[in-house]
């Protein structure tokens, strides 16, 4: 009893872990296969959800043994509701918790600007009904414009620059509002039934 006190084996020796190399799955080596491993994975994602504008004082930051570092410890001033930094931003009930994805969004997915289009990695289900219908109408419009001498381009069912010019000219001649687009008035004037 005097020298080696570990009468009852340690976690390792107790056979919980097959060998030294695997001894510290706790230290970050986590197998993916088992379902319940995710319990542990889950812990690492814990910081993902934080109250918006109110990052937890102890979030992921550590303090070392010799110096407590930045900040004022756990007790900070009694939150005053009216101080802006204490107030949660106006968020709906469905969005009170702002997830902070801990990855950087793929830059290819967000091209320049806030609202730019996103190339889909997977083909979304198209809506052939509308496309066919739109194309049909455009063909009728191009035919009519061509018949009346406004358009001499290809009848392709797509409104390109040439069609726009033709539409604008036609609208001007007919005393319609000039938009360069297919409006209900244009369809009426060309006797195309679309609705």
């Amino acid at each position, binding site marked *: 009893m005097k020298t*080696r*006190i*570990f*009468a*009852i*084996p*340690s*976690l*390792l020796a*107790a056979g*919980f872990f097959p060998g*030294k190399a695997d*001894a*510290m799955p*706790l*230290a*970050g080596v986590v197998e993916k296969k088992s379902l*319940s491993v995710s*319990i*542990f994975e*889950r*812990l*690492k994602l*814990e910081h993902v959800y934080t109250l918006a504008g109110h990052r937890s004082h*102890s979030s*992921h*930051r*550590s*303090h*070392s*043994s*010799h*110096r*407590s*570092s*930045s*900040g*004022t*410890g*756990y*007790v*900070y*001033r*009694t939150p005053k509701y009216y101080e802006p930094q204490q107030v949660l931003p106006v968020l709906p009930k469905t969005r009170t918790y702002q997830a902070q994805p801990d990855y950087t969004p793929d830059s290819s997915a967000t091209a320049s600007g806030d609202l730019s289009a996103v190339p889909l990695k997977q083909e979304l289900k198209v809506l052939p009904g509308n496309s066919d219908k739109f194309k049909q109408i455009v063909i009728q419009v191009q035919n009519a414009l061509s018949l009346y001498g406004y358009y001499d381009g290809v009848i392709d069912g797509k409104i390109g620059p040439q069609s726009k010019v033709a539409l604008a000219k036609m609208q001007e001649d007919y005393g319609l509002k000039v938009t360069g687009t297919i409006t209900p008035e244009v369809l009426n004037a060309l006797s195309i039934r679309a609705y």
Partner: protein
Amino acid sequence: MNVFPLKFRQWDDGTFLFADDAGGFFRSDETFLTRYAKDMLTDDDFSFLEENGHVYRQVADYSFNAFMYRWAKRLYAPGDLDYVIFVPTLRCNLSCGYCQVSRVNENTPGFDWDETTLQATLKFLDSLKTTRMKVEFQGGEPLLRIDLLERVREFCRERFDEVEFVVCTNLHQLGTREWAFLSANDTYVSTSLDANASVHQRQRTITAERTAEFFGNLRRAIDILGPSKVSALPTLDVRNLPDPRSVIESFTSFEMRSIYLRPVNYQGFARKQFQALDSAVRWNAYHAEFIDAMIDYNWTANEPVEEYYFVHCLRRVLRSGHNGHTDLRNPNVLGQSYLVIDHDGVFYPTDEARMVTRIGRIDLSMGNVRTGFSSVTVDALNAEATNNLHPDCVHCSYQPFCGVDLIDDLSRYGRIDMPKHDTDFCRRHTHLFDKVFELIYSEDPKVRKSVAIWAGMPEYDPAIAKVHA
């Protein structure tokens, strides 16, 4: 129904604390203990235990899975390395009595990072995966090498998305350049304020002139940087402990409300000389007295105070996943999520490991920033860094809240297999947790007020202190 293993501890008042491996706990008495040990639990017992998450019907049922989750969440899972402690110089312009190990005189050559070490350190930082980084500058007095600090900070700001810098400084001899450095938004000051002016002068500044310089600079730091960016630690001599109220008064006069009490940590010969066995007992008694003084203070104060480490322990009792302090983790995995780089570029897992190595007790270095990692010793320690099934800890009610500090054990006893109850770490923490539970179960409204503040509850509620009668 099966009961998850309960560990028990008898308190001085004769009642018993029962706690499971996931940190669920309640108070009961010896009759319950007997029924539990002898497999004679009653329906009442079972319904109490079930309501509070201590039983399951079969492995992998909902109760079991939830328990497993809580158990797992008590464990520390180190993340990517995102916290480094740099010692750019060991030189210091003070010579405090208790700091014989981690400093050399201001004019001693050869104890600073050289250009190669700086470059290697920056390269090392650049190689890390993390996008956020906390850098703590220690010494010595790191501001003696403000040029190095500036370069490291500049590099980190460039390299990482989120950065935070802490300068552990004695706040002496600060010029315009030093103040400018400390004034940045991402930079924090950690200093030492030993109790009050007289103790501070006795232990640190020696002359009235230097004492005045320190307090002047501390005031200035609070005024221009703001109290949220300045923290201070009191290092106290167990042989000469100040009145807790004077410490609270001196800290609150600087708007510092989080006080992290530290006993002087003697190393080597000084430890043998000054740290007799009973010093732990004395420290524990003082610490308890200090907590009581804070409770009194908070009862009437507008702005509460806390003892940082005590509150940390309290929260570890109530919550899982509360691993923000490197001293108290289970498993206490070293050398992964944070690291020390010494003045000569040597890696250490902790600052304590640096000291232990420096005094020649055992080599806990982990390689050198210029040549790379080598962590055989630390790996061996990590294999023993878990308390769950430790032969002593496995029976301890405080195990789920507690941690492991093998470096402290090595430093004090030269071995890691001392009976836990004979180690300073265990004695200190047993005492702390005894105090934590004393407060949690207290019916004194003054105590309850502080418990609520420290636990982060709007108001105290007895529901946190379960009792099974």
